[in-house]
């Protein structure tokens, strides 16, 4: 099954690349603005040989990893605290719903004003965007706790910490992992966007320089790199999810009722 999926995936990608080669070659779009796959691949080769590219990749990954780590940490702590402390959920619900839909990109002027073009302004945007993904999932996860299990734990005299550890956390974990997977993708998008718009060092800034330089194949090569990054991050997040939830029936499919 896995082999077939892999083969199908590869076939789909190959067809896509062939289309990318054919469309400009056939003159359906101008080669100058949409270079064929082979030229993009050539530009990609040049990029990979350039040490500045690897520095930029490192900057982007640093921003992504730090931002995601902060958002996950803060989201889990805030989510659990909000759910466990009586009345806090009602008290914050409207504020969360007010803040959550604000697009991170709208905060760019604020980020620039506070931190200029350095890593911290990227982090501000990344953390703001991915924090909500985690928080909301944690809130849903905690809501899903079986009241009978909760009451049983209480009547056996488990303290707050023990109940969080043994009842709440295992129930919420699948939700949290979904949140992490979503946040990982959102964080990558925001890192690249911040670099593109603000000019903080990284792949996004490199794309912007290629754009303003009229270096079209190089620009597409860098965009391909960000696509590959997104793919790897998604695969990675799914692997982590599978391992963390190895005990859960959604992963242990064979024993599901």
């Amino acid at each position, binding site marked *: 099954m896995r082999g077939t999926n892999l083969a199908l995936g590869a076939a789909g990608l190959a067809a896509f690349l062939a289309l990318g080669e054919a469309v400009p070659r056939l003159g359906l779009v*101008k080669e*100058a*603005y949409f270079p064929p796959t082979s030229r993009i691949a050539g530009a990609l080769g040049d990029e990979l040989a350039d040490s500045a590219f690897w520095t930029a990749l490192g900057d982007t990954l640093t921003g992504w990893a730090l931002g995601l780590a902060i958002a996950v940490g803060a989201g889990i702590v805030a989510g659990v605290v909000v759910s466990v402390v009586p*009345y806090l959920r*009602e*008290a*914050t*619900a*409207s*504020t969360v719903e*007010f803040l959550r839909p604000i697009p991170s990109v709208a905060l760019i*002027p604020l980020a*620039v*004003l*506070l*931190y*200029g*073009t*350095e890593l911290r302004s990227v982090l501000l945007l990344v953390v703001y965007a991915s924090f909500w993904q985690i928080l909301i999932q944690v809130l849903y996860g905690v809501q899903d706790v079986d009241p009978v299990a909760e009451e049983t734990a209480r009547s056996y005299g488990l303290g707050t910490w023990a109940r969080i550890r043994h009842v709440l956390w295992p129930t919420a974990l699948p939700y949290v992992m979904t949140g992490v997977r979503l946040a990982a993708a959102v964080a990558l998008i925001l890192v690249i966007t911040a670099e*593109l*718009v*603000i*000019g903080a060092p990284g792949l996004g*800034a490199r794309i*912007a*320089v*290629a*754009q*303003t*330089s*009229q*270096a079209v194949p*190089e620009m597409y090569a860098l965009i391909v790199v960000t696509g590959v990054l997104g793919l790897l991050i998604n695969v990675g997040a799914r692997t982590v999810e599978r391992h963390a939830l190895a005990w859960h029936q959604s992963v242990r499919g064979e024993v599901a009722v």
Partner: protein
Amino acid sequence: MRRLFAGLAAGTFLLATAACGSSDDSGTSTGSSSSTGTTTVELGLIPIVDVAPVYLGVKQGFYEKHGLKLSITTAQGGAAIVPGVVSGQFQFGFSNMTSLMVAQSNSVPVQAVSNGIASTGVQGKDFGAITVKKGSALRSAKDLEGKKVAINTLKNINETAVRESVRKAGGDPDRVKFVELAFDQMPAALDGGQIDAAMVVEPALATVKSQGGVEIASPLVDVAPDLTVAMYFTSTQYAQKNPEVVRKFQEATAESLAYADAHPDEVREVVTTYTKIPASVLARVTLPKWPAEANRSSIEALEKLGEQDELFTSPPDLEKLLP
């Protein structure tokens, strides 16, 4: 109802803590200077041909000679640079003259310190031009009436300049339909027919010309002979507190500008270190002029046109803005 009040209370609390956080942060922002005689200054630039003299100046040791170490940050567009300088993230920045005048008229405390770039002053041989597609029926700026013309930013220097070109050609600038488009997207949009004309600057201008596009006007030349297009600037606060650093920056930059003006080949070479302009395009790029001094009368002309086009909320004070 109780829920609503509880929510409001929590919201207020969050805002209050956020406000405290931000004031703490701005308090710790650093203005770095050392006692060893070398001062490190942050400079915010746009990665384009215009700022090549600074890179050359660093390479030639002009800034070092004056006791300055430049830490260059490239930002995407002026939007990040003006707030960056005003908030103290950068000590110096690079911006076009209209943006600086608009900032000043909006009471944003900026102060120009050194010349940036000037147009070549030669009709048909400038680094910026109104271009039309190969075979277009449009022959002069007057023909732009009722047509869709792309400029990089509405209500800024390029709109002022294009309007002046139309006016000078005997047309009515109010009848031109301006659309906002990034310079790098203009060649494709022009070629694809989405726009009728585009006000492009290098290196996009070289790309347009390589496709057979035709220049129909040189708007920056139409504004004034040898127009000062952009300048290096700092915040008024920084200039007052650090007159010595500003003086050093002015001297080193003046040397760098003169050197760049005299060595176009080295300019084309240094441009490849911070942009990705392909060699084939770079060879055809028209370089701007880099006089060491800003041209005051050209800036006054730009200001008058800006006022005519209602760009300023209050008239800019050039006495205070210019060095």
